Protein backbone atom coordinates (compact mmCIF):
# COMPACT_ATOMS: atom_id res chain seq x y z
CA UNK A 1 0.00 0.00 0.00
CA UNK A 2 2.52 2.55 1.19
CA UNK A 3 4.81 2.24 -1.80
CA UNK A 4 2.14 2.60 -4.45
CA UNK A 5 1.62 5.82 -6.32
CA UNK A 6 -1.69 6.77 -7.88
CA UNK A 7 -0.71 5.49 -11.31
CA UNK A 8 -0.95 1.92 -9.97
CA UNK A 9 -4.66 2.60 -9.75
CA UNK A 10 -5.06 1.34 -13.31
CA UNK A 11 -2.16 -1.04 -13.96
CA UNK A 12 -2.87 -4.67 -13.05
CA UNK A 13 -0.56 -6.24 -10.54
CA UNK A 14 1.83 -8.58 -12.35
CA UNK A 15 2.07 -10.83 -9.29
CA UNK A 16 -1.58 -11.73 -9.88
CA UNK A 17 -0.69 -13.04 -13.35
CA UNK A 18 2.18 -15.17 -12.04
CA UNK A 19 -0.02 -16.53 -9.30
CA UNK A 20 -2.74 -17.46 -11.78
CA UNK A 21 -0.25 -19.24 -14.07
CA UNK A 22 1.11 -21.28 -11.15
CA UNK A 23 -2.44 -22.15 -10.15
CA UNK A 24 -3.20 -23.32 -13.70
CA UNK A 25 -0.09 -25.52 -13.75
CA UNK A 26 -1.09 -27.10 -10.45
CA UNK A 27 -4.58 -27.80 -11.78
CA UNK A 28 -3.19 -29.61 -14.85
CA UNK A 29 -0.81 -31.69 -12.75
CA UNK A 30 -3.69 -32.70 -10.47
CA UNK A 31 -5.74 -33.74 -13.49
CA UNK A 32 -2.91 -35.85 -14.90
CA UNK A 33 -2.51 -37.66 -11.59
CA UNK A 34 -6.27 -38.30 -11.39
CA UNK A 35 -6.33 -39.67 -14.94
CA UNK A 36 -3.39 -41.96 -14.19
CA UNK A 37 -5.15 -43.33 -11.11
CA UNK A 38 -8.26 -44.20 -13.15
CA UNK A 39 -6.19 -45.96 -15.82
CA UNK A 40 -4.43 -47.99 -13.13
CA UNK A 41 -7.74 -49.05 -11.61
CA UNK A 42 -9.02 -50.22 -15.03
CA UNK A 43 -5.84 -52.21 -15.65
CA UNK A 44 -6.07 -53.91 -12.23
CA UNK A 45 -9.76 -54.60 -12.85
CA UNK A 46 -9.05 -56.22 -16.23
CA UNK A 47 -6.28 -58.42 -14.87
CA UNK A 48 -8.12 -59.39 -11.69
CA UNK A 49 -11.23 -60.16 -13.73
CA UNK A 50 -9.33 -62.79 -15.68
CA UNK A 51 -8.11 -64.45 -12.48
CA UNK A 52 -11.47 -64.66 -10.64
CA UNK A 53 -14.74 -66.41 -11.48
CA UNK A 54 -17.06 -64.16 -13.51
CA UNK A 55 -19.69 -64.13 -10.78
CA UNK A 56 -17.40 -62.11 -8.52
CA UNK A 57 -15.63 -59.95 -11.03
CA UNK A 58 -15.58 -60.08 -14.79
CA UNK A 59 -12.89 -58.27 -16.78
CA UNK A 60 -13.34 -54.62 -17.63
CA UNK A 61 -13.69 -55.20 -21.36
CA UNK A 62 -16.82 -57.32 -20.74
CA UNK A 63 -18.40 -54.39 -18.93
CA UNK A 64 -17.52 -52.22 -21.94
CA UNK A 65 -19.26 -54.68 -24.22
CA UNK A 66 -22.28 -54.73 -21.88
CA UNK A 67 -22.28 -50.94 -21.92
CA UNK A 68 -22.54 -51.04 -25.68
CA UNK A 69 -25.33 -53.60 -25.89
CA UNK A 70 -27.38 -52.05 -23.05
CA UNK A 71 -27.08 -48.69 -24.77
CA UNK A 72 -28.12 -50.07 -28.14
CA UNK A 73 -31.19 -51.89 -26.84
CA UNK A 74 -32.33 -48.76 -24.95
CA UNK A 75 -32.29 -50.29 -21.45
CA UNK A 76 -29.53 -48.01 -20.20
CA UNK A 77 -30.98 -44.85 -21.73
CA UNK A 78 -34.40 -45.43 -20.12
CA UNK A 79 -32.87 -46.25 -16.73
CA UNK A 80 -30.60 -43.21 -16.87
CA UNK A 81 -33.53 -40.97 -17.76
CA UNK A 82 -35.53 -42.29 -14.81
CA UNK A 83 -32.66 -41.77 -12.41
CA UNK A 84 -31.84 -38.30 -13.72
CA UNK A 85 -35.44 -37.16 -13.30
CA UNK A 86 -35.36 -38.23 -9.66
CA UNK A 87 -31.89 -36.72 -9.18
CA UNK A 88 -32.69 -33.33 -10.68
CA UNK A 89 -36.12 -33.06 -9.09
CA UNK A 90 -34.59 -33.99 -5.74
CA UNK A 91 -31.73 -31.52 -6.08
CA UNK A 92 -34.06 -28.72 -7.17
CA UNK A 93 -36.35 -29.37 -4.21
CA UNK A 94 -33.31 -29.53 -1.92
CA UNK A 95 -32.10 -26.12 -3.10
CA UNK A 96 -35.51 -24.52 -2.56
CA UNK A 97 -36.11 -26.13 0.84
CA UNK A 98 -32.50 -25.68 2.00
CA UNK A 99 -32.20 -22.03 0.96
CA UNK A 100 -35.60 -21.01 2.36
CA UNK A 101 -35.10 -22.72 5.73
CA UNK A 102 -31.45 -21.62 5.92
CA UNK A 103 -32.42 -18.01 5.18
CA UNK A 104 -35.16 -17.99 7.80
CA UNK A 105 -32.88 -19.54 10.41
CA UNK A 106 -30.02 -17.19 9.59
CA UNK A 107 -32.04 -13.99 9.54
CA UNK A 108 -34.51 -14.61 12.36
CA UNK A 109 -33.29 -15.84 15.70
CA UNK A 110 -36.71 -17.24 16.62
CA UNK A 111 -36.90 -19.33 13.47
CA UNK A 112 -33.50 -20.76 14.36
CA UNK A 113 -34.67 -21.65 17.87
CA UNK A 114 -37.74 -23.45 16.51
CA UNK A 115 -36.10 -25.22 13.56
CA UNK A 116 -32.65 -26.07 14.86
CA UNK A 117 -33.67 -29.20 16.87
CA UNK A 118 -35.46 -30.65 13.83
CA UNK A 119 -32.62 -29.88 11.46
CA UNK A 120 -29.95 -31.28 13.76
CA UNK A 121 -32.08 -34.31 14.62
CA UNK A 122 -32.81 -35.16 11.00
CA UNK A 123 -29.22 -34.51 10.03
CA UNK A 124 -27.88 -36.87 12.69
CA UNK A 125 -30.54 -39.55 12.15
CA UNK A 126 -29.93 -42.41 9.71
CA UNK A 127 -32.14 -41.10 6.95
CA UNK A 128 -32.71 -44.56 5.50
CA UNK A 129 -34.66 -45.43 8.65
CA UNK A 130 -37.38 -43.11 7.36
CA UNK A 131 -37.72 -45.07 4.14
CA UNK A 132 -40.61 -47.33 5.16
CA UNK A 133 -42.49 -44.30 6.43
CA UNK A 134 -41.83 -42.38 3.23
CA UNK A 135 -43.12 -45.24 1.08
CA UNK A 136 -46.14 -45.61 3.34
CA UNK A 137 -46.99 -41.95 2.86
CA UNK A 138 -45.93 -41.39 -0.71
CA UNK A 139 -46.24 -44.81 -2.37
CA UNK A 140 -43.67 -46.57 -4.50
CA UNK A 141 -43.25 -44.51 -7.62
CA UNK A 142 -41.38 -41.24 -8.20
CA UNK A 143 -42.53 -39.13 -5.23
CA UNK A 144 -40.94 -41.21 -2.44
CA UNK A 145 -37.68 -41.40 -4.38
CA UNK A 146 -37.53 -37.64 -4.67
CA UNK A 147 -38.38 -37.35 -0.98
CA UNK A 148 -35.46 -39.64 -0.07
CA UNK A 149 -33.10 -37.58 -2.19
CA UNK A 150 -34.25 -34.40 -0.45
CA UNK A 151 -33.91 -35.97 2.99
CA UNK A 152 -30.34 -36.95 2.23
CA UNK A 153 -29.21 -34.00 0.08
CA UNK A 154 -30.87 -31.00 1.66
CA UNK A 155 -28.55 -30.63 4.66
CA UNK A 156 -25.32 -29.35 3.10
CA UNK A 157 -27.32 -26.67 1.27
CA UNK A 158 -29.34 -25.78 4.36
CA UNK A 159 -26.36 -25.66 6.69
CA UNK A 160 -24.25 -23.66 4.24
CA UNK A 161 -27.04 -21.17 3.65
CA UNK A 162 -27.53 -20.76 7.39
CA UNK A 163 -23.80 -20.26 7.94
CA UNK A 164 -23.66 -17.92 4.93
CA UNK A 165 -26.33 -15.59 6.27
CA UNK A 166 -24.35 -15.26 9.49
CA UNK A 167 -21.35 -14.03 7.47
CA UNK A 168 -23.39 -11.27 5.81
CA UNK A 169 -22.04 -8.54 8.01
CA UNK A 170 -22.88 -4.93 8.68
CA UNK A 171 -20.65 -3.86 5.80
CA UNK A 172 -23.30 -5.12 3.40
CA UNK A 173 -26.40 -4.37 5.45
CA UNK A 174 -25.56 -0.85 6.57
CA UNK A 175 -25.31 0.78 3.13
CA UNK A 176 -28.60 -0.88 2.15
CA UNK A 177 -30.28 0.38 5.32
CA UNK A 178 -28.84 3.85 4.72
CA UNK A 179 -30.39 3.82 1.24
CA UNK A 180 -33.71 2.72 2.73
CA UNK A 181 -33.87 -0.82 1.36
CA UNK A 182 -37.00 -2.70 2.40
CA UNK A 183 -36.70 -6.04 4.20
CA UNK A 184 -37.64 -7.78 0.94
CA UNK A 185 -34.98 -5.83 -0.98
CA UNK A 186 -32.41 -6.71 1.68
CA UNK A 187 -33.25 -10.37 1.12
CA UNK A 188 -33.21 -10.31 -2.66
CA UNK A 189 -30.51 -7.74 -3.39
CA UNK A 190 -28.08 -8.17 -0.50
CA UNK A 191 -28.42 -11.44 1.38
CA UNK A 192 -29.18 -13.76 -1.54
CA UNK A 193 -26.30 -12.62 -3.74
CA UNK A 194 -23.98 -12.57 -0.74
CA UNK A 195 -24.75 -16.17 0.18
CA UNK A 196 -24.86 -17.51 -3.38
CA UNK A 197 -21.27 -18.83 -3.16
CA UNK A 198 -22.18 -20.63 0.07
CA UNK A 199 -25.28 -22.15 -1.51
CA UNK A 200 -23.21 -23.36 -4.46
CA UNK A 201 -20.60 -24.86 -2.13
CA UNK A 202 -23.41 -26.67 -0.31
CA UNK A 203 -24.91 -27.83 -3.59
CA UNK A 204 -21.56 -29.27 -4.62
CA UNK A 205 -21.56 -31.45 -1.52
CA UNK A 206 -25.23 -32.28 -2.02
CA UNK A 207 -24.74 -33.73 -5.50
CA UNK A 208 -22.85 -36.78 -4.25
CA UNK A 209 -25.33 -37.35 -1.46
CA UNK A 210 -28.23 -36.96 -3.90
CA UNK A 211 -26.80 -39.70 -6.13
CA UNK A 212 -26.71 -41.97 -3.07
CA UNK A 213 -30.32 -40.98 -2.35
CA UNK A 214 -31.39 -41.89 -5.89
CA UNK A 215 -29.84 -45.35 -5.65
CA UNK A 216 -31.26 -45.98 -2.17
CA UNK A 217 -34.72 -44.99 -3.40
CA UNK A 218 -34.42 -47.21 -6.45
CA UNK A 219 -33.22 -50.18 -4.39
CA UNK A 220 -35.88 -50.09 -1.74
CA UNK A 221 -39.04 -48.63 -3.25
CA UNK A 222 -40.28 -49.99 -6.55
CA UNK A 223 -37.11 -50.84 -8.40
CA UNK A 224 -36.39 -48.54 -11.32
CA UNK A 225 -33.66 -46.55 -12.97
CA UNK A 226 -29.96 -47.31 -12.62
CA UNK A 227 -30.33 -48.55 -9.05
CA UNK A 228 -33.03 -50.97 -10.23
CA UNK A 229 -30.70 -52.29 -12.94
CA UNK A 230 -27.99 -52.94 -10.35
CA UNK A 231 -30.35 -55.00 -8.21
CA UNK A 232 -31.67 -56.85 -11.24
CA UNK A 233 -28.24 -57.83 -12.63
CA UNK A 234 -26.83 -58.63 -9.21
CA UNK A 235 -29.78 -60.95 -8.61
CA UNK A 236 -29.05 -62.84 -11.82
CA UNK A 237 -25.27 -62.86 -11.26
CA UNK A 238 -24.60 -60.83 -14.39
CA UNK A 239 -21.62 -59.03 -12.91
CA UNK A 240 -20.35 -57.46 -16.15
CA UNK A 241 -23.74 -55.84 -16.77
CA UNK A 242 -24.08 -54.85 -13.12
CA UNK A 243 -21.06 -52.60 -13.40
CA UNK A 244 -22.59 -50.61 -16.26
CA UNK A 245 -25.18 -48.66 -14.16
CA UNK A 246 -22.58 -48.28 -11.41
CA UNK A 247 -20.17 -46.64 -13.85
CA UNK A 248 -22.90 -44.37 -15.19
CA UNK A 249 -23.76 -43.28 -11.64
CA UNK A 250 -20.11 -42.52 -10.91
CA UNK A 251 -19.83 -40.45 -14.08
CA UNK A 252 -23.07 -38.56 -13.33
CA UNK A 253 -21.89 -37.73 -9.82
CA UNK A 254 -18.43 -36.62 -10.91
CA UNK A 255 -19.62 -34.54 -13.88
CA UNK A 256 -22.35 -32.80 -11.88
CA UNK A 257 -20.01 -32.05 -8.99
CA UNK A 258 -17.40 -30.44 -11.19
CA UNK A 259 -20.11 -28.60 -13.14
CA UNK A 260 -21.36 -27.04 -9.91
CA UNK A 261 -17.76 -26.23 -8.98
CA UNK A 262 -17.35 -24.44 -12.29
CA UNK A 263 -20.59 -22.49 -11.77
CA UNK A 264 -19.42 -21.64 -8.27
CA UNK A 265 -16.30 -19.99 -9.65
CA UNK A 266 -18.20 -18.24 -12.43
CA UNK A 267 -20.89 -16.86 -10.13
CA UNK A 268 -18.55 -15.55 -7.46
CA UNK A 269 -15.36 -14.35 -9.18
CA UNK A 270 -14.58 -12.08 -6.20
CA UNK A 271 -14.24 -15.13 -3.94
CA UNK A 272 -11.52 -16.43 -6.27
CA UNK A 273 -9.63 -13.19 -6.13
CA UNK A 274 -9.69 -13.11 -2.35
CA UNK A 275 -7.03 -15.79 -2.47
CA UNK A 276 -4.83 -13.73 -4.77
CA UNK A 277 -2.21 -11.36 -3.41
CA UNK A 278 -3.83 -8.15 -2.23
CA UNK A 279 -3.93 -5.17 -4.55
Amino acid at each position, binding site marked *: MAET*VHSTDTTPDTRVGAQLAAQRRRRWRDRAIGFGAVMLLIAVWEVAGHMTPDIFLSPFHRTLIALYSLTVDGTLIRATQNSLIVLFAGLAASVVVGVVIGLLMGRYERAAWVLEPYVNGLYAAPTIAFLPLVTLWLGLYTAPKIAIVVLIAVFPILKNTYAGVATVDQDYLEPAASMRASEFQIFTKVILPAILPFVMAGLRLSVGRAVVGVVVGEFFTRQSGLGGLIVQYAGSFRTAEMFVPILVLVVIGAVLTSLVGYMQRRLAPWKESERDPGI
Partner: protein
Amino acid sequence: MTPETAATTEVPKLRVENIRKTFFRVERDRVTAVEALGGVSFTVRSGEFVSVIGPSGCGKSTLLRIIDGLVAADEGGVFVDGKKLTGPGHDRAVVFQYFGLYPWRTVQKNVEFGLELQGVPVAERRERARRNIALVGLSGFENHYPHELSGGMKQRVGFARALTMDPDIILMDEPFSAVDEQTRELLQEQLLDVWEKMGKTVVFITHSIDEAVFLADRVIVMGARPGRIVETVAVDLPRPRTSAHRASPRLLEIRTHAWETLRRGIIEAKAGLEGVG
Protein backbone atom coordinates in the same frame (compact mmCIF):
# COMPACT_ATOMS: atom_id res chain seq x y z
CA MET B 1 -32.96 43.56 9.37
CA THR B 2 -29.19 43.64 9.01
CA PRO B 3 -27.53 40.86 7.02
CA GLU B 4 -26.04 39.59 10.23
CA THR B 5 -29.34 38.92 11.99
CA ALA B 6 -30.69 37.37 8.77
CA ALA B 7 -27.83 34.89 8.89
CA THR B 8 -28.42 33.98 12.51
CA THR B 9 -32.17 33.45 12.13
CA GLU B 10 -31.71 31.30 9.01
CA VAL B 11 -32.72 27.65 9.61
CA PRO B 12 -29.55 25.54 9.42
CA LYS B 13 -29.39 22.69 6.93
CA LEU B 14 -28.40 20.31 9.70
CA ARG B 15 -28.84 20.72 13.42
CA VAL B 16 -27.54 18.19 15.90
CA GLU B 17 -28.95 18.82 19.33
CA ASN B 18 -27.61 17.39 22.55
CA ILE B 19 -27.01 13.88 21.24
CA ARG B 20 -26.24 11.27 23.87
CA LYS B 21 -25.47 7.64 23.25
CA THR B 22 -24.28 4.95 25.63
CA PHE B 23 -23.38 1.45 24.50
CA PHE B 24 -23.63 -1.47 26.87
CA ARG B 25 -21.25 -4.32 26.40
CA VAL B 26 -21.98 -7.67 28.02
CA GLU B 27 -18.95 -9.77 28.84
CA ARG B 28 -19.84 -12.96 30.67
CA ASP B 29 -21.58 -11.71 33.81
CA ARG B 30 -20.31 -8.13 33.64
CA VAL B 31 -21.94 -5.23 31.86
CA THR B 32 -19.79 -2.26 30.98
CA ALA B 33 -21.25 1.00 29.78
CA VAL B 34 -19.37 3.03 27.17
CA GLU B 35 -20.59 6.59 26.92
CA ALA B 36 -19.86 7.10 23.23
CA LEU B 37 -21.46 10.54 22.99
CA GLY B 38 -22.11 12.74 25.99
CA GLY B 39 -24.22 15.59 24.66
CA VAL B 40 -23.07 16.77 21.23
CA SER B 41 -24.61 19.83 19.58
CA PHE B 42 -23.71 21.74 16.44
CA THR B 43 -25.25 23.16 13.29
CA VAL B 44 -24.17 23.12 9.67
CA ARG B 45 -25.24 25.73 7.13
CA SER B 46 -26.51 24.74 3.71
CA GLY B 47 -23.56 24.17 1.39
CA GLU B 48 -21.06 24.25 4.22
CA PHE B 49 -18.16 21.82 4.49
CA VAL B 50 -17.58 20.76 8.09
CA SER B 51 -14.85 18.38 9.24
CA VAL B 52 -15.10 16.41 12.46
CA ILE B 53 -11.85 15.37 14.01
CA GLY B 54 -11.02 13.54 17.19
CA PRO B 55 -9.06 10.68 18.68
CA SER B 56 -10.01 7.12 17.80
CA GLY B 57 -12.99 5.90 19.80
CA CYS B 58 -14.39 9.35 20.61
CA GLY B 59 -17.68 8.54 18.89
CA LYS B 60 -17.21 10.09 15.44
CA SER B 61 -18.63 7.11 13.56
CA THR B 62 -21.45 6.80 16.06
CA LEU B 63 -22.30 10.46 15.54
CA LEU B 64 -22.37 9.96 11.78
CA ARG B 65 -24.59 6.89 12.08
CA ILE B 66 -26.98 8.81 14.30
CA ILE B 67 -27.14 11.67 11.79
CA ASP B 68 -27.85 9.17 9.01
CA GLY B 69 -30.48 7.42 11.14
CA LEU B 70 -28.73 4.04 11.22
CA VAL B 71 -28.39 4.22 15.00
CA ALA B 72 -30.89 5.79 17.37
CA ALA B 73 -29.65 8.30 19.92
CA ASP B 74 -30.57 7.83 23.57
CA GLU B 75 -31.29 11.53 23.89
CA GLY B 76 -31.40 14.59 21.68
CA GLY B 77 -32.35 14.95 18.06
CA VAL B 78 -31.13 15.52 14.54
CA PHE B 79 -32.92 18.13 12.42
CA VAL B 80 -32.66 18.69 8.68
CA ASP B 81 -34.17 22.02 7.53
CA GLY B 82 -35.67 22.25 11.01
CA LYS B 83 -37.48 18.91 10.72
CA LYS B 84 -36.70 16.21 13.23
CA LEU B 85 -35.47 12.97 11.68
CA THR B 86 -36.68 9.48 12.52
CA GLY B 87 -34.42 7.30 10.36
CA PRO B 88 -32.44 7.09 7.13
CA GLY B 89 -33.67 9.26 4.29
CA HIS B 90 -32.87 10.26 0.76
CA ASP B 91 -31.86 13.73 1.96
CA ARG B 92 -28.64 12.20 3.36
CA ALA B 93 -26.11 9.77 1.92
CA VAL B 94 -23.10 8.13 3.53
CA VAL B 95 -19.67 7.41 2.12
CA PHE B 96 -18.43 4.58 4.30
CA GLN B 97 -14.91 4.06 5.55
CA TYR B 98 -15.06 0.45 4.39
CA PHE B 99 -16.42 1.51 0.97
CA GLY B 100 -19.66 -0.48 1.41
CA LEU B 101 -19.61 -1.79 -2.15
CA TYR B 102 -21.22 -5.05 -3.24
CA PRO B 103 -18.64 -7.39 -4.79
CA TRP B 104 -21.22 -9.05 -7.07
CA ARG B 105 -22.15 -5.73 -8.66
CA THR B 106 -20.14 -3.86 -11.27
CA VAL B 107 -19.12 -0.24 -10.66
CA GLN B 108 -22.15 0.86 -12.68
CA LYS B 109 -24.54 -1.38 -10.73
CA ASN B 110 -23.06 -0.36 -7.39
CA VAL B 111 -23.52 3.30 -8.20
CA GLU B 112 -27.09 2.66 -9.39
CA PHE B 113 -27.99 0.67 -6.29
CA GLY B 114 -29.76 3.42 -4.35
CA LEU B 115 -31.85 4.43 -7.35
CA GLU B 116 -32.69 0.80 -8.02
CA LEU B 117 -34.04 0.50 -4.48
CA GLN B 118 -36.19 3.57 -5.11
CA GLY B 119 -37.56 2.03 -8.31
CA VAL B 120 -36.13 4.72 -10.60
CA PRO B 121 -36.57 3.63 -14.26
CA VAL B 122 -33.59 1.78 -15.74
CA ALA B 123 -32.71 4.35 -18.38
CA GLU B 124 -32.74 7.23 -15.93
CA ARG B 125 -30.68 5.52 -13.27
CA ARG B 126 -28.16 4.32 -15.81
CA GLU B 127 -27.73 7.87 -17.06
CA ARG B 128 -27.46 9.40 -13.59
CA ALA B 129 -24.95 6.78 -12.45
CA ARG B 130 -22.88 7.23 -15.59
CA ARG B 131 -22.73 10.98 -15.07
CA ASN B 132 -21.44 10.63 -11.51
CA ILE B 133 -18.97 7.91 -12.44
CA ALA B 134 -17.57 10.38 -14.95
CA LEU B 135 -17.58 13.13 -12.33
CA VAL B 136 -15.33 11.13 -10.00
CA GLY B 137 -13.05 10.25 -12.90
CA LEU B 138 -13.93 6.57 -13.33
CA SER B 139 -15.29 6.61 -16.87
CA GLY B 140 -14.29 3.39 -18.61
CA PHE B 141 -14.50 1.39 -15.39
CA GLU B 142 -18.30 1.00 -15.43
CA ASN B 143 -18.14 -2.74 -16.02
CA HIS B 144 -15.35 -3.52 -13.57
CA TYR B 145 -16.00 -5.31 -10.32
CA PRO B 146 -14.84 -3.82 -7.02
CA HIS B 147 -12.20 -6.51 -6.52
CA GLU B 148 -10.54 -5.28 -9.70
CA LEU B 149 -10.13 -1.76 -8.31
CA SER B 150 -7.62 -0.13 -5.98
CA GLY B 151 -8.68 1.33 -2.63
CA GLY B 152 -8.74 4.86 -3.99
CA MET B 153 -10.96 3.82 -6.89
CA LYS B 154 -13.35 1.93 -4.62
CA GLN B 155 -13.65 5.02 -2.49
CA ARG B 156 -14.56 7.06 -5.55
CA VAL B 157 -17.23 4.50 -6.45
CA GLY B 158 -18.68 4.94 -2.97
CA PHE B 159 -18.63 8.70 -3.47
CA ALA B 160 -20.29 8.41 -6.89
CA ARG B 161 -23.00 6.25 -5.33
CA ALA B 162 -23.67 8.88 -2.68
CA LEU B 163 -23.79 11.64 -5.31
CA THR B 164 -26.17 9.61 -7.45
CA MET B 165 -28.71 9.60 -4.61
CA ASP B 166 -28.68 13.39 -5.03
CA PRO B 167 -28.84 14.07 -1.29
CA ASP B 168 -28.66 17.50 0.36
CA ILE B 169 -26.13 16.26 2.89
CA ILE B 170 -23.21 13.94 2.29
CA LEU B 171 -21.80 12.20 5.37
CA MET B 172 -18.28 10.86 4.97
CA ASP B 173 -16.61 8.62 7.53
CA GLU B 174 -12.81 8.70 7.21
CA PRO B 175 -13.22 8.00 3.50
CA PHE B 176 -9.55 8.40 2.60
CA SER B 177 -7.97 6.61 5.55
CA ALA B 178 -7.39 3.39 3.60
CA VAL B 179 -5.57 4.94 0.63
CA ASP B 180 -1.96 5.96 0.30
CA GLU B 181 -0.76 9.50 0.86
CA GLN B 182 -0.47 10.66 -2.76
CA THR B 183 -3.82 9.24 -3.75
CA ARG B 184 -5.35 10.82 -0.67
CA GLU B 185 -4.27 14.32 -1.68
CA LEU B 186 -5.67 13.85 -5.16
CA LEU B 187 -8.94 12.53 -3.75
CA GLN B 188 -9.18 15.52 -1.41
CA GLU B 189 -8.74 17.96 -4.27
CA GLN B 190 -11.22 16.05 -6.38
CA LEU B 191 -13.72 16.08 -3.53
CA LEU B 192 -13.40 19.85 -3.17
CA ASP B 193 -13.80 20.23 -6.91
CA VAL B 194 -17.03 18.23 -6.94
CA TRP B 195 -18.26 20.00 -3.82
CA GLU B 196 -17.71 23.44 -5.40
CA LYS B 197 -19.69 22.31 -8.44
CA MET B 198 -22.60 20.67 -6.64
CA GLY B 199 -23.02 22.80 -3.54
CA LYS B 200 -23.79 19.92 -1.20
CA THR B 201 -23.56 20.14 2.56
CA VAL B 202 -20.75 17.90 3.75
CA VAL B 203 -19.93 16.44 7.16
CA PHE B 204 -16.50 14.89 6.82
CA ILE B 205 -15.00 12.72 9.54
CA THR B 206 -11.28 12.24 9.64
CA HIS B 207 -8.48 11.64 12.07
CA SER B 208 -6.04 13.70 10.02
CA ILE B 209 -5.74 17.33 11.09
CA ASP B 210 -4.21 18.35 7.77
CA GLU B 211 -7.08 16.82 5.88
CA ALA B 212 -9.68 18.40 8.17
CA VAL B 213 -8.22 21.90 7.86
CA PHE B 214 -7.49 21.74 4.14
CA LEU B 215 -11.03 20.66 3.26
CA ALA B 216 -13.35 22.39 5.68
CA ASP B 217 -14.97 25.73 6.41
CA ARG B 218 -15.06 24.71 10.06
CA VAL B 219 -13.35 21.95 12.00
CA ILE B 220 -15.22 20.43 14.92
CA VAL B 221 -12.67 19.05 17.36
CA MET B 222 -13.95 16.22 19.53
CA GLY B 223 -12.60 14.70 22.72
CA ALA B 224 -13.12 11.24 24.16
CA ARG B 225 -14.77 9.68 27.23
CA PRO B 226 -17.39 10.77 26.83
CA GLY B 227 -17.32 11.86 23.18
CA ARG B 228 -17.95 15.59 23.11
CA ILE B 229 -17.04 18.74 21.22
CA VAL B 230 -13.96 20.45 22.63
CA GLU B 231 -13.92 23.39 20.26
CA THR B 232 -14.97 24.47 16.79
CA VAL B 233 -12.21 26.02 14.69
CA ALA B 234 -13.11 28.28 11.76
CA VAL B 235 -10.92 27.88 8.67
CA ASP B 236 -10.85 31.27 6.94
CA LEU B 237 -8.85 30.17 3.93
CA PRO B 238 -10.05 31.37 0.53
CA ARG B 239 -11.92 29.16 -1.89
CA PRO B 240 -11.42 27.46 -4.24
CA ARG B 241 -8.57 25.71 -2.50
CA THR B 242 -5.79 24.07 -4.41
CA SER B 243 -2.75 22.09 -3.41
CA ALA B 244 -0.91 25.42 -3.17
CA HIS B 245 -2.90 26.19 -0.01
CA ARG B 246 -1.45 23.18 1.75
CA ALA B 247 1.72 25.07 2.63
CA SER B 248 0.15 28.50 3.27
CA PRO B 249 1.15 30.10 6.60
CA ARG B 250 -2.50 30.69 7.54
CA LEU B 251 -3.30 26.99 7.13
CA LEU B 252 -0.32 26.03 9.25
CA GLU B 253 -1.42 28.49 11.92
CA ILE B 254 -4.94 27.04 12.01
CA ARG B 255 -3.52 23.55 11.95
CA THR B 256 -1.35 24.29 15.00
CA HIS B 257 -4.33 25.70 16.85
CA ALA B 258 -6.49 22.68 15.98
CA TRP B 259 -3.71 20.35 17.06
CA GLU B 260 -3.43 22.06 20.44
CA THR B 261 -7.17 21.85 20.92
CA LEU B 262 -7.12 18.17 20.06
CA ARG B 263 -4.24 17.57 22.49
CA ARG B 264 -6.12 19.39 25.22
CA GLY B 265 -9.11 17.10 24.64
CA ILE B 266 -6.92 14.00 24.87
CA ILE B 267 -5.12 15.17 27.99
CA GLU B 268 -8.41 16.09 29.67
CA ALA B 269 -9.78 12.65 28.85
CA LYS B 270 -6.69 10.98 30.33
CA ALA B 271 -6.96 13.10 33.46
CA GLY B 272 -10.63 12.20 33.72
CA LEU B 273 -9.80 8.52 33.44
CA GLU B 274 -7.16 8.74 36.15
CA GLY B 275 -9.61 10.60 38.36
CA VAL B 276 -12.10 7.74 37.98
CA GLY B 277 -9.58 4.95 38.26
